[in-house]
């Protein structure tokens, strides 16, 4: 037999509880700062790379294709298109959700990249639909300043 016997009952293994005692303060960075400040103002910002003549979403400090620095940022006004969506029926702790959460990859035809965000859970939204961001009235500079994207009528 190439295998040794395994402990089959977890309760038979002697264990000791532990964790790694740290937490983090993440730096938003140059690109992230532009993005979050824009969200606070109710705008979706992108970066503009003059080397490949592209708008990049969300904004970054450098273009990963040209590997050049970016210092020009623009307002991205859409059209925002649902590239792919999913419906989540369980939360992170594996509890069943009464109303599924809809999440989508949303892109803009002329921009590189895209945004991952929620869709209005009460709307029927399909791949290829044009959507728009719905911002909260009170905004703090957070990804969740956008409540969700919903159908653009």
């Amino acid at each position, binding site marked *: 037999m190439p295998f040794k016997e395994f402990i089959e009952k977890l309760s038979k293994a002697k264990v000791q509880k532990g964790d790694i005692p*740290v937490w*983090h*303060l*993440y730096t938003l960075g*140059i*690109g992230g700062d532009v993005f979050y400040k824009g969200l606070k103002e109710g705008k979706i910002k992108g970066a503009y790379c003059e080397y490949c003549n592209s708008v990049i979403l969300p904004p970054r*400090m450098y273009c990963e294709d040209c*590997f050049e620095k970016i210092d020009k940022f623009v307002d991205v006004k859409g059209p925002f298109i649902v590239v792919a969506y999913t419906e989540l029926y369980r939360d992170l702790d594996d509890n069943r959700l009464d109303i599924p959460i809809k999440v989508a990859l949303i892109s803009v035809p002329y921009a590189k990249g895209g945004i991952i965000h929620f869709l209005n859970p009460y709307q029927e939204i399909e791949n290829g639909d044009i959507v728009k961001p719905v911002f909260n009235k009170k905004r703090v500079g957070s990804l969740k300043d956008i409540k969700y994207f919903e159908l653009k009528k």
Partner: protein
Amino acid sequence: MAQKVAILGAGLTKFMRRAKETGKELAFEAARMALEEANMDISEIDCVVMATAPDMFDGVHMKGDWLSDGAGAKRKPYMRSYVGGGSGVFAIIHGWYLVASGLFDTCLVVAEEKMSSCMPHPQGAFNAIYDQFLERPLGVNLLWIFSLEMMRYMHVHKISLETIALVSVKNKRNGLDHPCTQKGIAGEYTVKDILNSEVIAYPVYRLMVSPVTDAAAAIVITSEHEAKRRTDNPIWIEGVGWCLDTSYWTNRDLYYPKYVEYAARMAYDMAGIKDPRKEIHVVEPYDPFAYKELHHLEGLLLADKGEAPKLLEKGFWDRDTKDGIPSCPSGGLLGVGNPIAAAGLMKVIEIYLQLKGEAGKRQVKREVKRGLAQAWGDLMQVGTVVILSK
């Protein structure tokens, strides 16, 4: 037969306690500078190597992958080099064998560390490098092993605290001339100043410990034919070496870093060096703690066991020495800062600049044809060594 490998460019960001840039952005800044010096476009880079220490520091799991676009690695063969604190020098070794093997002609080597993300202090992450059952229940942090090791080193060779403090004095003074030095790290200190600082874990004093730092460093390396096509005076990688000792630190004699000696011997053999004390003209040993520089100089066979402190007192390791070997002319980790992986690559870059004669105010007085950089880390048991020459 391995193909010869050269360094064509280097980049280093400012060392900071907390940078406004993300780890990716820091990596980009350093990589961009290195490409500019090498006069190369990212499209001319065949492969990318990234060194960065524990994921826990940035708080991004699999951060090597996450950082890759900042290192210019999009759609390129990419690998992370990781041997803890030894990573910065290991990265150039890693890049070296990718090029020396003939697999690639050009490689961008990037090292990044964003230690400011880790709260309340990176020591929390260091706690988790120790054995869960044999050490962690005691609340161990990184200083334990250093203070015990320093104590053992001082005891065996009868070295005084005053002598060890001289390392801090030397490196903090050298660091004054480094354009990237972290604010408040370098300075003119006396032995008395060092020993008047807080005792953190006896015999380690506050001013004998390198700080927590955010920064990135990068170099461009190429094969011989690429190097000769692009520059008239490349700096060559003559030898590399690395070695790991047992992870049971109870099973090593702490007074002497055998693994550093083995790594050094591997590099000396490759470089054809018979007498390192004559053939190495400038050295950047890893100095996260003051005694470590002396400890490593002995491991590198640049001094007999227990002799490095005596040579220090005589000024043998000073930057302006005429007949000695300048050690840590950059200012080292004590004088410039310690962004783990980037600190190791900073040392490689210092040797590169010294050999090119472009170290500015830090340029050593004696003639230099060959230099060595060394880093150390993992569970305090890895030695990584690289030898560069004109």
